[in-house]
């Protein structure tokens, strides 16, 4: 019996030839990350152990992205606490101020997470790096504290669900629409405890940005990880980035899957997930006229340069966003911000009446910079639309791709780019 890519990576990190689903293993970790919300708890726990040094100062990333630029005194104290720890421990990958980006955008961009790695993070969207052919998953602060001490973490090996993607993508359809469609199909716990492996001919046509978006949202189906087989696009992406050597793994032809789904992507239209679950995915064109108050284009899901290009191509030069819609563009990293500046995208956004924010998670989790009042509605390229996610408990978030978000900003209601 063959192994899946997930099983192979985990086996290689626990010193075994083969691992099987439901087996408990102790895995080595190539990178452990935490942010300004989760690192303070992790560091407090780490300090209780009385250990003087972290296991490896080059294998820990601390990314101050959630409430930064610091939104209030308490948040500033948190970041100060983490900064002092990073200095004291000589943590190599500490991100704050001018070098900070949204964690799941900046770590791949800097070549710090690589194919074949085991990566854990005290952030649920750590599963993003599966786009590169890594095993990566979210854990809590206590787990990160234990890893900072030992470099190891325990896992139950997940069974795998296989998603075979075929068919040509329709215009304006991206990785976001495919993953929303899949979550709509299997539900928010449809992959609970399991690995989601994406394969099939369509994967070759996806950009790395599409793959990051899809792996990123595998947690929204309850998945432990989401993973793609590395291909030429992966190697091209890593060419000038990878900071270490890496290893490419592929699932065996006779690997065992809990379930196989065949997804004909040519049938997928731009999707919108209605409040209050990411699984409430509908064709954007079928949604009745819903007026909105805000649009957010950004986040670890859709804040990459490809996303901003798509949004700018819908808005184009000379168009204005609707006067009733506050529109926030949040480049996910400083490099994305700079590239958008060079390409003239920021000019298009600013002239259209949008606000450009510093890279931050900000409004995605109702942190800051774009909080919703009661009764307000927002179309967002982020990943969650739970009750109160972006602000008031009576506000609503509609998840969409950047093209639908940009079209909605112009129209003032949930719209498709074809309406522009």
């Amino acid at each position, binding site marked *: 019996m063959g192994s899946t890519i997930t099983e192979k990576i985990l086996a290689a990190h626990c010193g075994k030839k083969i691992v099987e689903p439901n087996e408990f293993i102790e895995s080595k970790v190539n990178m452990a990350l935490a942010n300004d919300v989760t690192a303070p708890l992790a560091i407090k726990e780490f300090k209780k152990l009385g250990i003087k040094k972290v296991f490896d100062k080059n294998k820990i990333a601390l990314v101050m992205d959630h409430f930064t630029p610091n939104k209030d005194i308490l948040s500033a104290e948190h970041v100060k606490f983490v900064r002092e720890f990073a200095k004291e421990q000589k943590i190599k990958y500490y991100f704050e101020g001018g070098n900070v980006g949204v964690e799941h955008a900046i770590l791949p961009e800097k070549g710090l997470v690589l194919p074949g790695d085991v990566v854990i993070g005290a952030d*649920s969207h750590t599963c993003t790096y599966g786009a590169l052919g890594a095993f990566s998953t979210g854990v809590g602060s*206590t787990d990160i504290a234990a890893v900072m001490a030992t470099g190891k973490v325990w896992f139950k090996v997940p069974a795998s669900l296989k998603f075979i993607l075929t068919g040509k993508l329709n215009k304006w359809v991206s990785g976001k629409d495919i993953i929303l469609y899949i979550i709509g199909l299997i539900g928010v*716990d449809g992959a609970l*405890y399991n690995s989601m492996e994406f394969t099939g001919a369509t994967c070759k046509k996806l950009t790395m940005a599409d793959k990051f978006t899809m792996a990123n949202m595998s947690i929204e189906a309850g998945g432990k990880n989401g993973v793609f087989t590395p291909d030429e696009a992966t190697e091209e992406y890593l060419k000038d980035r990878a900071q270490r050597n890496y290893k490419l793994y592929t699932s065996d032809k006779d690997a065992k899957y809990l379930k196989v789904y065949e997804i004909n992507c040519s049938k997928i239209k731009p999707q919108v997930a209605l409040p209050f679950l990411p699984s409430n995915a509908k064709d954007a064109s079928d949604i009745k006229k819903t007026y909105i108050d805000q649009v957010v284009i950004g986040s670890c899901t859709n804040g990459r340069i490809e996303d901003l290009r798509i949004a700018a191509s819908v808005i184009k030069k000379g168009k204005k966003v609707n006067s009733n819609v506050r529109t926030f563009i949040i480049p996910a990293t400083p490099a994305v911000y700079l590239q958008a500046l060079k390409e003239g995208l920021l000019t298009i956004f600013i002239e259209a009446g949008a606000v450009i924010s510093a890279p931050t998670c900000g409004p995605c989790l109702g942190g800051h910079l774009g909080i919703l009042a009661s009764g307000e509605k927002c179309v967002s390229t982020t990943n969650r639309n*739970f*009750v109160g996610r972006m602000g008031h408990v009576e506000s609503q978030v509609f998840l969409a791709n950047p093209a639908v978000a940009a079209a909605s900003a112009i129209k003032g209601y949930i719209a498709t780019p074809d309406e522009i």
Partner: protein
Amino acid sequence: MAADIVLKGKVHKYGSNVNTDEIIPARYLNTTDHEILAKHCMEDIDKDFVKNVVKGDIIVAENNFGCGSSREHAPISIKAAGVSAVIANSFARIFFRNSINIGLPILEAPDAVKAVENGDIIEVNLSKGIVTNITKKETYSSHPFPEFMQKIIQSGGLFGYISGKEL
């Protein structure tokens, strides 16, 4: 193994997909103070929860409890609010991991979830995996908690367990 871990309290019942944004909204994530987190526990799904909860009470919910973010603040707020255990058909995996790590007992017990109603008084024997409904005079069985997990719970969490002392 020492005596069985037995927990008793009044049930607060919820549906499926209770998520971490509802358990502890992000507006309170600028603190790690357990007492402050406790004051806002379940605020966006049940604003009266904190007023109604009594030490020892038990949360019972349907599927996928704790889905969403990896914030450990969620199980911390539940534990600090005085809740002695959470029972559900299923838990989101990060929430499950975090709960054990901070020493909050959680149990998958579908038979109990189906029968138990809001306000019932129940007793949970973690060591045996048995839930007794004192109000309805019924008993539901589940899986016993593995011994190492019982020890983690009794040590107040993973770090207490590792260092062999209560934190």
